[in-house]
C-alpha cells in the first residue's frame, strides 16, 4: 500500500521478521514468565541501597539536617545537587514522548514508554530532597496554598521556590497521566494474552476495560496529541523554574540570565544519557534487540551531541563573562580560573572532562552506533552532570562576598547514603516496571511496522527495480 511507503534508504526501525502477533508476544514474554536470576540480583542490590537510604533519611528526620555536611556558608549542597540532577534526568522522557511526537519522529515509539517511566521515577527521587531538606517533612503541606492556623497567611507566589512546587507537581502528575493513558491499550493487550487468571484479573483492572473501538482510538490519538502539546512547554518550564531558584538570587555565579536555556539543555543532555544507560541494559535483559536498534542509539546520541554542545557554549559564556566582569568575586564562580585552580579543581575538571571533552567522541559514527561505547559515554555524562550541579551549588557558595565566612563542604555518610538510597529506589521502581509493564508502546509501534519494519522494507521482485 502506498500509505505505508517509506524510502528504502531509511534504515528499518524494527528488525527481524516481525508480525503484529510477534510484537505482542515479545512484549508479553517477560511479563508472563518468571523473573530471571539477573533480575533478582539487580533487584536485591537496588533494594539494599534503598533500605540503606531509608535508614539515612529516618536518621536525618530524627536528628535533624545537622547530620548532613552543611554549614553556615554552604546551606545547600548534596541535597539540592541531587534534586536538580534527578529533575534533569526526568526531562528526556517527556522530550522523547511529547516533543518527538509533535515532530512525528517514529523512532520514539520503541523507547518512549521506558523513557517516560524513567521521568516519573526520577521526578519522585527529586521531590524527596526538598521535602527532607525542610527538616520537618510532616509539615510539607505548608507549601500548598491553603489557609493555615495562624490567620490567613498565604504562600508567597513571588518566590521561585513556590513556583518550583507548582512546576514539579504539575510535571509529575501530567507525566503520570500521559504515561498511563498510553499504557491502557497495551495493558488491554496483556489482559487478552496472558493465561494465568490472577494476572488476567490484574491487567483487566489496569486496562480500564479498553476494547479498541474506532471512536476510542480517535479520542486516544487526540488525547495523545494535545497532552504532547501541553507537555512540551511544560518540560521547558520545569527546568527553567528550577534554574530560577538560582538565578533570582544574588549569589555570584547564580545570578545569571543564561541559566534557564542552559539548564534546560543540560537537563535534556543528562536525561538522554540516562535513557541510553537504562536502555542498553533493558534491550539485552528483555531481549529487545530488534526494537531498540543501532539507529535508535545513534539518534539519541545526536541529541546528546546537540544539547551537549549547547551546554558547552553556556560553560564558555559563563567562563568568559566571569573573567570579563573584572569583579574579584566573579573569579571564584563555578566556571572561572579561580574554580579551575582552587580547592575544588577536581570538581571543575571532572565537569569539563565528562561534559565537554569525552562526549565529543560521539562525532565519530562508529562510536555513536556502538552499544558499549554509548553505554560508557552515557555513564560518564551522568557523572559529569552531577558534578555540574555540585560545582554550581557548592563552589559558588563556598566563597561568598565575605572572606571571613569562606568554607569548604564535605559530605557525611548520611549525605552519601541518601543519594545512594534514591539511586536504589529509582532502580527498584524501574526493575518492577520492566518486569510487569509493557516496556514498548506496542500498539503504536504496530502502526509503523509496515512502513519501517525490516521485513516489509526488503525489496521484493518488481519493487527492487524502482
Amino acid at each position, binding site marked *: 500500500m502506498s500509505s505505508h511507503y517509506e524510502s528504502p534508504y531509511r534504515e528499518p526501525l524494527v528488525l527481524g521478521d516481525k508480525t503484529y502477533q510477534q510484537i505482542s508476544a515479545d512484549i508479553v514474554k517477560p511479563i508472563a514468565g518468571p523473573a530471571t536470576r539477573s533480575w533478582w540480583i539487580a533487584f536485591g542490590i537496588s533494594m539494599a541501597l534503598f533500605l540503606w537510604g531509608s535508614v539515612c533519611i529516618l536518621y536525618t528526620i530524627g536528628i535533624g539536617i545537622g547530620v548532613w555536611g552543611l554549614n553556615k556558608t554552604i546551606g545547600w549542597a548534596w541535597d539540592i545537587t541531587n534534586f536538580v540532577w534527578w529533575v534533569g534526568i526526568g526531562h528526556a522522557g517527556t522530550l522523547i514522548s511529547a516533543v518527538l511526537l509533535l515532530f512525528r519522529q517514529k523512532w520514539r515509539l520503541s523507547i518512549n514508554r521506558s523513557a517516560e517511566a524513567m521521568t516519573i521515577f526520577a521526578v519522585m527521587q527529586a521531590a524527596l530532597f526538598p521535602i527532607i531538606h525542610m527538616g520537618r517533612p510532616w509539615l510539607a503541606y505548608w507549601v500548598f496554598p491553603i489557609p493555615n492556623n495562624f490567620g490567613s497567611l498565604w504562600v508567597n507566589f513571588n518566590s521561585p521556590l513556590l513556583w518550583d512546587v507548582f512546576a514539579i507537581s504539575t510535571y509529575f502528575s501530567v507525566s503520570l497521566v500521559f504515561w498511563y493513558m498510553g499504557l491502557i491499550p497495551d495493558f488491554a493487550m496483556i489482559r487478552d494474552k496472558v493465561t494465568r487468571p490472577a494476572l488476567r484479573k490484574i491487567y483487566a483492572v489496569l486496562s480500564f476495560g479498553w476494547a*479498541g473501538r474506532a471512536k476510542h482510538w480517535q479520542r486516544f490519538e487526540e488525547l495523545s496529541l494535545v497532552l504532547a502539546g501541553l507537555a512540551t512547554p511544560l518540560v521547558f518550564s520545569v527546568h527553567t523554574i528550577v534554574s530560577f531558584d538560582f538565578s533570582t538570587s544574588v549569589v555570584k555565579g547564580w545570578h545569571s540570565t543564561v541559566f534557564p536555556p542552559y539548564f534546560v539543555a543540560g537537563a535534556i543532555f543528562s536525561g538522554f544519557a540516562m535513557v541510553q544507560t537504562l536502555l542498553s541494559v533493558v534491550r539485552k535483559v528483555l531481549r529487545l534487540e530488534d526494537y531498540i536498534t543501532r539507529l535508535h542509539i545513534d539518534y539519541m546520541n545526536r541529541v546528546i551531541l546537540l544539547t551537549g554542545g549547547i551546554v558547552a557554549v553556556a560553560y564558555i559564556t559563563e567562563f568568559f563573562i566571569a573573567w570579563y566582569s573584572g569583579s574579584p568575586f566573579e573569579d571564584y564562580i563555578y566556571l572561572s580560573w579561580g574554580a579551575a585552580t582552587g580547592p575544588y579543581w577536581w570538581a571543575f575538571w571532572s565537569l569539563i572532562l565528562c561534559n565537554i571533552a569525552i562526549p565529543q567522541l560521539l562525532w565519530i559514527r562508529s562510536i555513536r552506533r556502538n552499544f558499549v561505547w554509548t553505554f560508557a559515554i552515557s555513564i560518564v555524562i551522568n557523572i559529569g552532570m552531577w558534578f555540574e550541579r555540585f560545582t554550581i551549588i557548592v563552589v559558588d557558595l563556598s566563597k561568598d562576598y565575605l572572606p571571613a565566612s569562606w568554607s569548604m563542604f564535605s559530605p557525611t555518610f548520611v549525605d552519601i547514603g541518601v543519594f545512594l538510597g534514591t539511586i536504589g529506589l529509582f532502580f527498584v521502581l524501574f526493575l518492577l516496571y520492566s518486569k510487569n509493564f509493557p516496556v514498548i508502546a506496542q500498539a503504536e509501534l504496530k502502526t509503523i511496522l509496515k512502513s519501517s519494519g525490516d521485513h516489509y522494507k526488503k525489496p521484493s521482485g518488481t519493487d527492487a527495480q524502482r
Partner: protein
Amino acid sequence: MRSDKILYGLYDDEDLLLSAVERIRREGIPIDEVYSPFPVHGLDKALGLQETRLGITAFIYGLLGLGFAIWMTWYMMIYDWPQDIGGKPSFTWGENMPAFVPILFELTVFCSAHLMAVTFLVRNAMYPGARAANPHPATTDDKFVMEISVRAADEPQVVALFKETGALAIHLKNPES
C-alpha cells in the same frame, strides 16, 4: 433499527479492513463498531465518525485553569493579605503579574491535561475494572473485527460482503443469547 442478530467479520490486515469498511458502507449497510489493536489511519473517516471535540474541551479547561490561577494569585497576594516581599509591588495584580506567570502557566497546563484525561475516560466509559467489550481477545493483538447488527433478512448479504472483502472468519451472535 431493530436488529435480530449481530455479525462479526474478522480481518487480519488493516488495509483489508479499511477497504472492507469502505465497500460495506458503499452498499449502504451501517457498521456498528470496529475493534482494532492499534489506531488505523483513516478508519474514522472511512466509518464516517465525527471529529472528536476533546481538543476543544482541553482548551476550555485550560482557560478555567488560567482563570482560577488569576483569581487565586489576586485573592491571596493582593486582596486578602498583601505583603511587601523583596520590594515587589503588591498594590495591584497587574503590577505583580510577571512574578505570577509561572503559576498561571502551570495551573493552565495542570487543569487542561487532567480534566481532558478525565473527560476522555468518562466519554469512553472507562474506569478501573470496567468490563472489556471486545468480542475477540485477538482484537488487542493482531486482528480487526467489524461489528454489524442485521435483521434476519439482510444476513446473507452481509455475510457475502464479509467473504468478498477478505474476512478471515465470520461469527454470528444473537443479541439475547
